[in-house]
């Protein structure tokens, strides 16, 4: 069996900034199975409203706990924001294909994150803590109200660069303003997660410079298991499901 359906107890649900929350769940079996880039599919409510489960990348997984870092944007995520300690949630996971682990020869690892797309890179950087490559996070946020401390990333040996649309924190502009920090050297891997236009910009940058990488994509999901074929996106190899074939795809595989 590759995944499980379990009832997870809320350990903590912490408001991080105006819109972001850090939810900690007790889910020992899940915590052991999770790989960076995989997600969990959460039933945010009993009954039929909202109807679908909601997918969230795993932010951290250790000591029997699984964390997600999420933004309250709509009905489902706002309900999730209201969950309290000792509430329980029906969780399915871990789902999807993880990021490919960089080999020993890789010298530079670049995480490019737009907004809440930063989530999967925490667990990834936890696992890569001992990897000798130069590691950096290029983070693009909307404004100060949408930023958060980079301390945990720094602890994992990741250099963090921040850009905000309004310049309230870091450089003013899109995350692409930060691409200049990337040394264009061989043995570089780029990992991107965020809004589709951002990933498109990363993909075209990577193509221009001949760099390889992967992106975690988003699409509305029903099953999360590859069963309904509802979350398909167009790739160079035809339609592929984000939940089962992805969410991680090679940067040059996705058609924007």
């Amino acid at each position, binding site marked *: *069996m*590759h*995944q*499980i*359906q379990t009832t997870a107890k809320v350990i903590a649900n912490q408001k991080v900034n105006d819109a972001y929350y850090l939810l900690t769940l007790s889910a020992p079996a899940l915590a052991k199975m999770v790989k960076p880039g995989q997600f969990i599919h959460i*039933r945010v409510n009993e009954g*039929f*409203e*909202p*109807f*679908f*489960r909601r997918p969230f990348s795993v932010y951290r997984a250790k000591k029997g706990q699984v964390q997600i870092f999420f933004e309250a944007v709509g009905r489902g995520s706002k309900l999730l924001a209201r969950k309290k300690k000792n509430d329980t949630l*029906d969780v*399915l996971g871990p789902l999807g294909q993880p990021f490919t682990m960089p080999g020993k020869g890789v010298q530079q690892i670049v995480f490019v994150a737009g907004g809440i797309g930063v989530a999967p890179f925490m667990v990834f950087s936890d696992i890569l803590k001992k990897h000798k490559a130069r590691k950096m996070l290029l983070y693009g946020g909307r404004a100060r109200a949408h930023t958060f401390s980079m301390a945990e990333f720094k602890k994992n040996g990741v250099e963090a660069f921040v850009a905000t649309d309004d310049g309230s924190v870091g450089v003013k502009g899109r995350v692409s303003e930060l691409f200049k920090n990337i040394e264009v050297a061989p043995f570089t891997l780029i990992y991107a997660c965020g809004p589709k236009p951002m990933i498109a910009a990363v993909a075209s940058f990577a193509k221009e410079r001949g760099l390889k990488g992967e992106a975690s994509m988003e*699409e*509305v999901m*029903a*099953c*999360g*298991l*590859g*069963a*309904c*074929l*509802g*979350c*398909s*996106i*167009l790739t160079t190899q*035809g*339609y592929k499901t984000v939940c*089962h074939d992805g969410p991680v795809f090679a940067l040059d595989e996705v058609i924007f």
Partner: protein
Amino acid sequence: MNIAVKIGKSVFPNPVTVASGTFGHSEELYSLKEVRCLGAIVPKTVTLKAQEGNPPRRICETPAGMINAIGIENPGIDVFIAKKLPGLKKTGVPVIVSISAHSENDFALMAQKLNAAGKIAAIELNLSCPNLKKKVLVAQDAAATASVVRRIKRISKYPVIAKLSPNVTDIAAIALAAEASGADAVSMVNTFAAMSIDVKRRCSRIGNFTGGLSGPAIRPIAVRMVCETAAKIKIPIIGMGGITNANDALEFLIAGASMVAVGTYNFINPKAPLEVLIGIMAYMKENRMTDIRELIGSIKR
């Protein structure tokens, strides 16, 4: 307790199955022991040639349900028989293969290929496909339904199930046409034609513009259709439409369905079919029933 159900010459160990298009790789979630609790497996509809499916977005959430326009994405029947069928057969659970086609000849070709493949419990004809001669679906035209069923019955060595569309004025009339042409059972219902509009963008939420509604939202209509049809036909009905738990499934059985399928709700609770089976058996025990036939069609009028 006897909960086995017969369709044509095929026997299904219990009345709980899954609706086509809603049970894919989720076998990864179950132990083989759990999969073996199903009365039958119905994989996604296959067509003669591979189909790539509709452009995204293919699904959207609606009140107590969803709209889908997947476009029968499938690898084609040859790949299905070579790559997917062996694994399904290995579970030991009877497999009902769902097929669809753009012409009667294509249906016939597929039925022949399935004859050669061997060891299939039944063929389900997904008749929600365009009827090339008229501007309606085959399932919306009694004569076209009858014609396809008759042709496949002549060819197929397996029982033939006609899957009906609810997008008709009188679904029992279509069921009667299928029965008269030799269908061994009818499966009902498929999704209801529907759409959802994003008011902000003034666009359909579905890439294909319209799609099919499923889930608990359609259940009361599906139950009514099964009840009406059961009063008119003698062949078994596989009932579906918004089943989420045993109680929902019992509604269909009491209305006259001989089998029930969990569809959309597999996406919300992959364990639903199992829970439905356990609940049906508990209900029978509670009501001192020893044979599922005491339950089927037991609605008081």
